[in-house]
């Protein structure tokens, strides 16, 4: 390298430092209302189709709008769409967009933007993938109309378009939506109520959003992703706090206004503060889980898997996750979200009760030969870390030989995808969790599928489970759906698709002078005001 390039690099770095007004505050109008929010994780990237982390989806919901949006009863309601029409026995859907919708750069939202947005979304979304498989054509008829022709009816189409689970079907401008679904977008022009201030974004530290004045909210009152998304503040700032204790102190001190996920142990302290309000964050909660590898011993033996499910004590897991507050967790003898229509306890009577004696007996009867259980535990995720500690203890008690691999979430992500034998870079067990919103029904719930090679990591192969799911897809009415799910649940319990460690809720906390915060699967910022 010659001196010139050397100096150029230095100058580039220096200029980058000087010319980055990232940390400069914007010129705020007098009396501008700023809502400072502490998100659950770092906002490291900003493509809600490419990156499926929840925090990206939450930010995306501020910046992009959707064709439909589910309300608090999980019923899809029209959002950007003015009317829809179903013809040909459910094979043709014709949609008409609302008038006056605009992107943040002033351009109108046209059907020509919707089509590539949906195409990109379908490439990454499981339900979208199912639609794509039966899709005949998806075209823009004119500026405000587009048509979707399918080969088979798909009654859940509107739900798929309006659901909260990532990736969400956000509508982007055509040129941006044409980006390959496996490559990040680099422009963030949105259709939603807030504009993303890219020049103020410091990944890992903060992000800023500014209300888009030309957004046209619907007339109806807002409810989750449905209704009118009226912004009652001028700016929203996301302050990323890597340290929980610091976030708690900042909320108490008034340096932030709203904290997405305070840990349960800190809640009594926050409640004592006269300026802080604490309530449940998402009534749909979360389901903790660990998955066993059905391809290799010892967990290729269903009886051994049963032993684990019988021996595990969900109360232990839940206490480790949410502490002493009993209102925050429920035992979960199944795989579907409590409090929703399809919740089922069929076949789950034996699991999760901590019956070590029976577990030990089952292990012996199954003929366990002492094979080592390679158990992957990510230490940098509090949920998996806590679960991992309990599992290590559980396995020892039942009588397994355990190889506890303490690593990080990134390595877990790579290793769990490997179908190699556990001793050669594979695995026997790893820990994770799912949000309740993702476990309401088998659509968009890959973790409950048991179709062998195509299933989620662990690759369970249980025809009975798949039969039940197929029945649900074809079910004509809610009673048939429930019956199908009961069958699925029982089969999943018996075959141990995965091990549910319990159902748990989380809290959110905010300052008293903030109003309008609702419970839901994400932090709905519309309707939130600050005194």
């Amino acid at each position: 390298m010659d001196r010139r390039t050397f100096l150029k690099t230095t100058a580039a770095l220096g200029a980058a430092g000087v010319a980055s007004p990232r940390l400069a505050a914007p010129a705020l109008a007098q009396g501008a209302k700023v809502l400072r929010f502490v998100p659950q994780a770092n906002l490291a990237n900003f493509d809600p189709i490419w990156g499926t982390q929840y925090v990206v989806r939450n930010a995306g919901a501020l910046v992009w709008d959707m064709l439909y949006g589910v309300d608090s009863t999980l019923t899809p309601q029209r959002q950007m769409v003015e009317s829809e029409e179903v013809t040909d026995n459910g094979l043709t859907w014709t949609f008409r967009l609302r008038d006056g919708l605009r992107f943040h750069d002033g351009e109108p939202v046209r059907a020509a933007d919707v089509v590539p947005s949906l195409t990109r979304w379908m490439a990454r979304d499981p339900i979208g993938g199912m639609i794509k498989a039966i899709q005949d054509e998806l075209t823009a008829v004119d500026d405000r109309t587009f048509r979707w022709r399918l080969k088979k009816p798909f009654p859940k189409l509107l739900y798929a378009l309006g659901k909260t689970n990532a990736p969400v079907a956000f509508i982007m401008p055509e040129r941006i939506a044409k980006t390959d679904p496996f490559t990040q977008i680099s422009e963030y022009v949105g259709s939603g109520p807030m504009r993303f201030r890219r020049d103020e974004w410091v990944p890992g530290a903060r992000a800023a959003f500014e209300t888009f004045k030309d957004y046209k909210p619907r007339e109806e009152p807002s409810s989750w992703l449905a209704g009118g998304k009226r912004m009652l503040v001028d700016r929203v700032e996301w302050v990323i706090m890597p340290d929980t204790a610091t976030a708690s102190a900042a909320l108490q001190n008034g340096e932030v206004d709203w904290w997405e996920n305070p840990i349960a142990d800190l809640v009594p302290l926050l409640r004592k503060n006269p300026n802080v309000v604490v309530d449940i964050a998402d009534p749909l909660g979360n389901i903790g889980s660990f998955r066993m590898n059905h391809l290799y011993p010892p967990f290729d033996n269903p009886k051994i898997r049963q032993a684990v499910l019988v021996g595990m004590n969900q109360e232990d897991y839940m206490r480790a996750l949410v502490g002493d507050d009993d209102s925050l967790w429920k035992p979960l003898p199944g795989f579907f979200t409590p409090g929703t229509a399809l919740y089922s306890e069929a076949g789950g009577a034996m699991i999760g009760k901590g019956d070590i004696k029976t577990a030990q007996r089952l292990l012996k009867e199954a003929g366990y030969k002492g094979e080592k259980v390679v158990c992957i535990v990510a230490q940098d995720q509090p949920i998996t870390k806590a679960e991992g500690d309990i599992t290590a203890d559980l396995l020892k008690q039942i009588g397994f030989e355990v190889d506890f691999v303490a690593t990080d979430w990134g390595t877990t992500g790579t290793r769990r995808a490997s179908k190699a034998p556990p001793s050669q870079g594979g695995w026997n067990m790893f820990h994770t969790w799912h949000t309740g919103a993702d476990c309401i029904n088998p659509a968009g719930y890959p973790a409950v599928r048991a179709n062998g090679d195509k299933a989620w990591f662990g690759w369970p192969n249980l025809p009975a489970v798949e039969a039940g799911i197929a029945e649900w897809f074809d079910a004509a009415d809610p009673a048939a759906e429930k019956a199908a799910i009961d069958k699925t649940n029982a089969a999943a319990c018996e075959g141990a698709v995965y091990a549910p460690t319990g159902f748990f809720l989380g809290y959110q906390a905010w300052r008293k002078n903030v109003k309008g915060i609702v419970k839901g699967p994400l932090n709905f910022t519309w309707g939130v005001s600050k005194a």
Partner: protein
Amino acid sequence: MLGYIGRRVLATIPVMAVVGLFVFSLLYLSPGDPAAIIAGDQATPEDIERIRASLGLDRPFLVRFGEWAWRILHGDLGISIFTNLPVSTLIGQRVEPTVSLMLVTLVFAIVVAVPLGVLAAWKAGSLIDRLVMGLAVTGFSVPVFVVGYILAYVFALQLGWLPVQGYTPIAQGLWPWLANLILPSVTLGLVYIALIARVTRATMLDVLNQDYVRTARAKGLAQRHVLFVHALKNAAVPIVTVIGIGIALLIGGAVVTETVFAIPGLGRLTVDAILRRDYPVIQGVVLLFSFTYVAVNLAIDLLYTVLDPRIRY
């Protein structure tokens, strides 16, 4: 002198090449790559492979290293895998907080530690000496985050004098900038104080026994004059040396301090990048650190010529 500087600058190139190769190899060897994290929870192994291919992570080591080295030589630090922003932008955003933190910490540490070291040397062997040194060493022994939590609790939460967290750019006012930096600097500085005080004391002891000091005293100069004008100037070289060494050590403590006080600095950027395997960021930041280390050492060597006229290059 210019020749000396030129030679030193040239000598940095192999050093940085070593660093670059080492870090690159390290990342190449590490299991887990960003593709899995990016693919997310719903991903299939095919998705992960596709992302890996689109990031160019499946190419052989030499190809990737060569490409990266070529880009670096043209001043292009690459694009972060996760944020899709140029690495130089990410670094540029975080330079100011880190530099501010280092500067204020340095000033605080020097202002406290040098007088302490001088005091201890002056009263060498006495109770004061032992007490001062003992306190200094204690500052070095308590884990940084514990100190940080305690200070934040007392001064921010309970007394409300200072903010708990965050960073305010200096462009928004001197006091807000300083207010955010006081607690983190004290936290970090305590570690540094022991180091500087110890070296100051030892050097001063050495110097105070020299003939010219005795002459100065015999001439009837005030003790303070003797200490600060004659002795300290001569003790400056080793003190400045230790300050230079300490900067690399400080970065370790800075990672923790930046986490506890939510300062958007380079330490936190690097740790996050390491845990997420954001290779371009890791490589860029480490290169920057090594460059800084080399530059600081060069500056210190040049400072010697100012402090000690006997040193000539």
